[in-house]
């Protein structure tokens, strides 16, 4: 085959979705494509999406697994609302994802599995590929490329002598090679990766590398694909970057919290999707003094963490929503005993077992109130996969400084999604001082000097609930410290001395003091950053403030950018601390006419804001198990801007009132 001359087209961004059967290796393919793009220097955001079943029946719709990657030559915030390119490895993958494609999207189909049997399984009455180009072509709105990926893979790897089944399993690498060619991705890191991953099985290793290279070469030589695309590296702040998922960043953050506090980390955890990766990751870091205990259940997991904290370690427990429900009573114990503890909730669709592999942020109120009695718990929420690192360090800071359990609310999207992360300098991370108690802190009898000058030294003892004036934190005296022997527990404690107390006034005081301690955390928080290009809060043109928390940061930011690009003004603020709220939040809320609160729940932050600040928070709520879509959000923001300013908002680029059309919004944000 002669060299085909290829056209190179510049793009500023692309969204690709790899989709196939759960066993087709789509997560790996997507992950490798992401790594290549990261190394190339694009900004990127990913969205893995897979079934809860490990191997759902092959070829069926429920068995479809996909990985979406959005990469660009500029700073982007979301994994993209809709794919520009779909790679479909079988009929079910095509059918399950077709509805998400905009007209004009490119589809690359592996024709090999379009057999009667597989078409039946996917619910196709006839082969949609048979009608390509016909008047009734069901795929007429798309640019469809049919390629026998599997057939070519099997042919290419023949020399390695694998069974047909093993040979065909390398088809994902063929697809990766083809897409890598198409978007000019560097290939070295994938070849290195394959060499490492399959080092012990040379024939499989070689087959995968061959398939990958053949896929690349196929792109270069075939006439099926005549255009190669170029997406230049993004301009990003200086620094060293890596691509990282939320669960990995969160694990590293916990390790860092241990290093910066000098405390050994002890994780008590019970496996649960989508949090288990944190348990897996932390179990690799024993050299940092990290102990992981896989407990018999969720309650034991937190019990072990509390026991370790009592012993002077940094107790951590990781789980998802159903696990938090089980841990509630123990979290209350940590509130009462005032011991440092980090509770990680990687939220998933609920209630009950819900949607284990899908994302949601409907545990906010559970984190806030899901315990008996007045049991305030600080809440920290990361806003992006990389941000899980510093959010974890922050959770450790609060837990240790204020002697309290802290809820760290990640979610399934952050957990498995990835983005380039600017790696921080360890020395820039906060130093966390456990400040263990070493001496008695309470005078029983003051020193006495008799008339003859003889001195009777003071008699002192230890009061476990005598508080620090600034933080209201109680002393942390660990077993093994002589003279500080004391008992703590779930029963109400007398202020100061910490003995059991049923005194009504004491209980009222202690309830208020525990709340006041959590409120004091706000003193240590930086002012909120309001993103309002129209001016300082309340002084600019923006009348609408969009406020969110957690993983909606990307879609909200992208939605606001779209609205601004169309010429309108809107402000955005994103909350990392949900309890206590930052001190300046109330003031900021009051400076805008309308407050929109997008959330992947039915309005949990809205409820808190309304209750706390008497603000008329307007909810924007979807609970589809997927991130919010930037385009839909932009629409909602635009409508509210229109309402607030008494204008008609047109996001297609025309300002109402006949002003000049501003820039087009096809540069996704």
């Amino acid at each position, binding site marked *: 085959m002669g060299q085909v001359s290829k056209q190179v087209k510049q793009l500023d961004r692309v969204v690709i979705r790899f989709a196939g059967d759960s066993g087709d290796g789509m997560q790996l393919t997507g992950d490798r494509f992401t790594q290549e793009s990261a190394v190339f220097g694009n900004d990127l955001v990913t969205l893995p999406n897979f079934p809860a079943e490990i191997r759902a029946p092959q070829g069926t719709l429920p068995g479809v697994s996909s990985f979406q990657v959005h990469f660009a030559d500029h700073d982007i915030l979301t994994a993209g609302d809709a794919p520009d390119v779909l790679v479909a490895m079988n009929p079910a993958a095509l059918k399950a994802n077709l509805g998400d494609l905009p007209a004009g999207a490119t589809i690359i189909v592996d024709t090999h599995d379009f057999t009667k049997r597989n078409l039946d399984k996917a619910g196709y009455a006839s082969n949609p590929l048979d009608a390509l180009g016909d008047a009734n072509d069901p795929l007429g709105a798309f640019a469809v490329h049919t390629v026998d990926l599997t057939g070519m893979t099997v042919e290419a790897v023949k020399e390695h002598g694998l069974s047909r089944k093993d040979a065909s399993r390398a088809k994902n690498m063929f697809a990766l090679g083809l897409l890598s060619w198409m978007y000019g991705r560097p290939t070295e890191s994938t070849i290195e990766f394959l060499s490492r991953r399959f080092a012990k099985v040379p024939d499989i290793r070689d087959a995968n590398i061959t398939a990958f290279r053949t896929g690349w070469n196929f792109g270069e030589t075939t006439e099926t694909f005549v255009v190669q695309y170029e997406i230049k590296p993004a301009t990003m702040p200086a620094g060293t970057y*890596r691509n990282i998922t939320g669960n990995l960043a969160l694990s590293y953050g916990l390790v860092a919290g241990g290093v910066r506090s000098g405390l050994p980390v002890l994780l008590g955890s019970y496996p649960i999707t989508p949090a288990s990766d944190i348990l897996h990751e932390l179990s690799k870091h*024993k050299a940092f003094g990290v102990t992981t205990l896989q407990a018999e259940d969720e309650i034991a997991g937190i*019990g*072990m963490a509390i026991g*370790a904290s009592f012993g002077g370690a940094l107790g951590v427990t990781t789980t998802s929503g159903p696990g938090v429900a089980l841990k509630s009573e123990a979290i209350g114990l940590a509130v009462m005993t005032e011991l440092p503890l980090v509770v990680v909730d990687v939220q998933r669709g609920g209630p009950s077992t819900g949607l284990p592999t899908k994302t949601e942020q409907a545990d906010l109120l559970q984190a806030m109130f899901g315990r008996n009695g007045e049991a305030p718990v600080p809440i920290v929420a990361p806003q992006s996969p990389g941000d899980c690192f510093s959010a974890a360090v922050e959770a450790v800071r609060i837990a240790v400084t204020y002697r309290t359990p802290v809820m760290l609310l990640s979610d399934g999207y952050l957990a498995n999604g990835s983005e380039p992360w600017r790696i921080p300098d360890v020395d820039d991370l906060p130093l966390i001082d456990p400040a263990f108690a070493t001496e008695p802190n309470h005078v029983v009898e003051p020193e006495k000097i008799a008339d003859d000058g003889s001195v009777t030294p003071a008699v002192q003892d230890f009061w476990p609930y005598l508080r620090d004036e600034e933080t209201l934190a109680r002393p942390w005296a660990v077993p093994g410290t002589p003279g500080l022997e004391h*008992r703590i527990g779930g029963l109400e404690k007398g202020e100061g001395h910490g003995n059991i107390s049923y005194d009504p006034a004491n209980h009222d005081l202690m309830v208020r003091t525990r709340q006041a301690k959590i409120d004091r955390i706000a003193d240590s928080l930086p002012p909120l950053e309001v993103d309002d290009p129209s001016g300082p809060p309340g002084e600019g043109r923006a009348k609408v403030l969009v406020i969110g928390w957690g993983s909606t940061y990307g879609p909200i930011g992208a939605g606001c950018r779209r609205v601004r690009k169309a010429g309108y003004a809107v402000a955005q603020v994103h909350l990392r601390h949900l309890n206590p709220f930052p001190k300046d939040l109330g003031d900021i809320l009051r400076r805008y006419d309308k407050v929109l609160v997008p959330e992947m729940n039915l309005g949990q932050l809205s409820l808190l804001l309304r209750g706390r600040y008497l603000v008329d928070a307007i909810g924007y709520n979807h609970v589809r198990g997927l991130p919010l879509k930037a385009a839909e959000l932009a629409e909602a923001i635009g409508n509210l801007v229109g309402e607030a300013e008494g204008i008609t908002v047109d996001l297609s680029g025309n300002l109402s009132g006949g002003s000049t059309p501003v820039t087009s919004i096809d540069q996704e944000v």
Partner: protein
Amino acid sequence: MTTTDLPTPDLRTGTESVPRFVPGEGDQPQTGKDFSSDQEVRWCPGCGDYAVLKAVQSFLPDLGLRRENIVFISGIGCSSRFPYYLDTYGMHSIHGRAPSIATGLATAREDLSVWVVTGDGDALSIGGNHLIHALRRNVNMTILLFNNRIYGLTKGQYSPTSEAGKVTKSTPMGSVDHPFNPVSLALGAEATFVARTIDSDRKHLTAVLSAAAAHRGTSLVEIYQNCPIFNDGAFDAIKDRDTKQDAIIPLVHGEQIRFGATLEDGRGSRGLVRDLETGGVKIVAVTDVDDAALLVHDAHQADPSTAFAISRLTEMGYLNQTPIGIFRQVARPTYDDQSRAQITSAQHVALGEGTDQTSRLTGLINGGDTWTVV
């Protein structure tokens, strides 16, 4: 699947890694009083818990450990107030969860002597899961299971050790629950140290506690304890002068298991032999069998079958008969020792690389494919 051979840690005694109290080297001798807190004890008059508390307070100094390195963790229930009355470190936690808290503490801190105080409801109902898993893991701790066969703190409902047919507030027509035998349960859960003793027998109680503390791993000690308010007399048969010699089957390692009216040789007239029909053991008159057939107690036997068979001699209805003593005492590596050994070995490798924590953390977060933007 892959398994790997775990290194065998040295089998030490239960308190070997705990700092010791050295009288004469700046340390004043310790007495039971040193272990009593300033809190007023608030159990009902006549409660068996008083006797156990006294015994523990006076026994603790004999362990020779530094007081600040002893920790008592309890759950919920009458007996779980125990830690408040001891001047050691302590935590009165939540219902049933004490073994999990103790597991975290004992794993994090090799230098502590960790004790769990629990009851029949706390350990066997709400905390059943944690109990069996602590036992199989063999974490270095001693569990004192106060068994009064009733719920006291909630005022008199039947417990998981109450006899079937028991009439209580929640079972006016008699309980239809079949009870647990805690010793059988523990043996089935792979426990390495299982014993039973009685609140009122201070000598036996103290001896069992000493052995339990010396055992490296999870020691389970069931203590029969009378609740004078809601289940008074539950243990009369084993306490009454006239009946106890027939009711108590004492287990002493290396000795024939003998009980009942004393014979001329000074030992009991009844003994145990293997029951070939059931695979268990049965009670016989010693005069009816060869002396060689009489079972000699072997608590160190690796196979728990005989210990289990002996545990089945416990009456499950009203307690007219029960073995007491150490059923099983075998050595097995502990979870916490092995967990710490893995940490130490990983840290050793890291130290060999000669970098401090900060440099290694920098290395960790810079792992994987990185790129630099200037």
